[in-house]
């Protein structure tokens, strides 16, 4: 049988030795011929991740299981810090406050952000100007915003009480916005919402701009009113953006330290104590570093679950 001439014999028909290569082992077969080069490229990243993320994280887990005071070597105590925290009423209140603070803040930011985006998609005058103005809370440094609100909420010298009592005469006497049970948590939530809603708004705005106008036209031809167009065209169009924004905002709000610390330091009487402030107080007030890390690590499961749920929800949506 005549052989078929092939000017370029395939690599598989030529013995490896004839090509000057060593015969492929199992790794080369499994990972491809350039696997050594691959290792070379991956190694710096792997080392960086191990050194900058994995090692500190594992060390933090170890420290959270120690009795570690400043300037003293850590003493391993197992899960004692976690157990003690679980029994600590102030810690439990901080956990509950964190969820209240985060949930309320994210819900209001979502609502206000949506309103902002809807308003900015209409043909209002000076739209670019209003977009810029509405972004100011997001752009301004947190410390500056919080300090301004500290002054605004001040019971004696604050502008809010001045307006309500002296200018509009709505109240007979000023309110201790940051010092009373009904208003302290609401006030810190309000500041967080004020600071965070432009992020929602601008993200939704970007999502809405990407929705083809034809969809709205078609819906209008089909007789959909504004609410129906919002529900059946706008909402599905920005669904994934909304999930990402809610996810990010939940993480940021849960970890928000600056606003609460500057406005109330977690007071009065722990009424606004949230977990990041509790962590800080345990680390630098109590100077019990092992326990402070245990507080911080308590944040991981709720955040992890939130991320997993939202990510799964987003993947499902994409599959549909």
């Amino acid at each position, binding site marked *: 049988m005549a052989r078929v001439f092939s000017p370029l014999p395939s690599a598989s028909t030529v013995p490896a030795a004839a090509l000057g290569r060593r015969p492929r082992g199992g790794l080369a077969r499994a990972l491809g011929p350039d696997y050594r080069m691959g290792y070379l490229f991956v190694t710096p990243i792997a080392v960086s991740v191990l050194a900058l993320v994995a090692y500190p994280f594992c060390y933090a887990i170890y420290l959270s299981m120690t009795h570690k005071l400043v300037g003293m070597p850590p003493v391993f105590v197992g899960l004692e810090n976690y157990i003690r925290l679980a029994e600590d009423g102030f810690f439990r209140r901080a956990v509950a406050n964190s969820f209240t603070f985060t949930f309320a803040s994210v819900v209001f930011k979502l609502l206000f952000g949506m309103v902002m985006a809807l308003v900015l998609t209409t043909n209002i005058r000076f739209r670019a100007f209003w977009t810029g103005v509405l972004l100011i809370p997001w752009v301004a440094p947190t410390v500056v915003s919080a300090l301004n609100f500290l002054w605004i909420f*001040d019971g004696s*010298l604050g502008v809010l009480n001045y307006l309500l009592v002296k200018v509009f005469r709505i109240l007979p006497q*000023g309110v*201790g916005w*940051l*010092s009373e049970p009904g208003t302290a948590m609401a006030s810190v939530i309000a500041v967080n919402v004020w600071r965070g809603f432009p992020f929602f708004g601008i993200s939704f705005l970007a999502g809405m701009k990407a929705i083809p106008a034809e969809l709205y036209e078609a819906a209008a031809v089909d007789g959909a009113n504004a609410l129906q167009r919002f529900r059946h065209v706008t909402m599905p169009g920005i669904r994934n953006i909304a999930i990402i924004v809610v996810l990010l905002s939940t993480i940021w709000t849960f970890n928000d330290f600056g606003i609460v610390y500057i406005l109330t330091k977690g*007071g009065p009487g722990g009424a606004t104590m949230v977990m990041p402030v509790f962590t800080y107080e345990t680390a*630098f*007030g109590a100077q019990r570093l092992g326990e402070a890390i245990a507080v911080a690590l308590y944040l991981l499961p709720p955040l992890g679950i939130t991320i997993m749920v939202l990510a799964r929800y987003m993947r499902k949506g994409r599959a549909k």
Partner: protein
Amino acid sequence: MIDSRLRGLAEQVEANQISRRQFLRQAAIITGGTAAGTHVLRSMASAQGKPKLRIWLFKSFVTAGNEVLQKQIEAWAKERNVDIETDWATFGDREQKFVAAIEAGNPPDVAEMNYQGPARYRPALRDLTKVSTEIAGARGGLLPHAERYVVIGGQHLAVARQTWPGGFFVRKDLLDAKGLKMPKVYDPDVVDIAKKTQDPSKDLWGLGQTLNRSDDGNGFMQNILWNYGGSVWDKEGKPALGTSFLKQNVEALQFAVDTITKHKIQPPGVMAWTDVHNNEAYMAGKLVTTNNGASLYYAMVNRKHPLAAQTQVIGTPGGPAGSFLAAGCYSWGIFKASKHADLCEDMIRWVEDEKRFEEYMRTSIGQAGPVYKVRAQNPYWKSDPNFDGMLQNVLRGVWPGYPGPITPAAIEVQAQYILCDMAGRVVVGGLSAEAAVKEAHRRVEEIYKIRSRG
């Protein structure tokens, strides 16, 4: 210029006395040795150069005092030919800075610490017994409260510098207008004065005293427990908040809360105040009385504020068991990691020299209170009628942990604002005074247990 040994080697190569390989080997040895020798010489030279000290100072609200201290230290550095790197810790970041530096093994050489420093940073601090006793001995000895702060476990872990005196600031013009006398006790004197002089419709309030998480709130809550015969600790330094002193502590807490909820002599929002709020409210003419450090008086005098002349600073009012208050102590600590402990001690001697301290004290307008017996007798304290109340407060000052010793647990109760939280749980949380005291007691016991491990 070529080394003579290299030139010799080169000549040998040219004369074929040694091979090129031998030339390279020997040349490498010569140049390597020369380089190493040069490096050693350079490091020896730099070791003989100026030593460098890292110095941390505390930035108080008395800015003129801060400047005087900085200049004095710079003058010392110039005189001793020392390079210095000064850094300022503030009310907001002092603990973070110390914790981070100690944990990183990179603390400053010498630092000005607040009253918590010697007890909290004990493992990292040097024993300064020799220099401390020398300085104190030359100044008539330490005042009792100052000794408690710097002497821990029989060792002087710091050299005392100053106490920031506190006082009860009273608008004497408003009291004079109503024919009222200066108060001696909180209940009924301060309450009466407050009710008779305040005018909420004009936003003028009888008392401005936060119970919130702040140094001001901490100080007041601690003092009021003592004034009613209570305390957080017993004489042995064991927790007594909700046990042996329960009755007295509940009465004291109830009074503190009543100033807000029952007597209504405090402005709205007082439970959210930080350390600066009462200063601002007092200078804005919205308060008849307030407790504060001398820095408020300094601020008014320094700014030529009209209320400076209308203010009388008196000794802090008391309660049924007497008048007690904690007097703090700022002190110098030298860290074990320092390689220049002798220089640090020299710097401390320099700034604690009486002439230099007097310059600092006069600039500070009452803020630089005495920690040594001789300094308490300085005629300066008679130069202003408002200084007398401040001085008396220092002289009768006690310490966190009183009537027991200062312990790391007592310091932590202060640092964690346990007593402020206790008040907040009544005012905001709706707990009864007794329930709040018992809740706080559990936290104190937990701290005591943890700190007892060492």
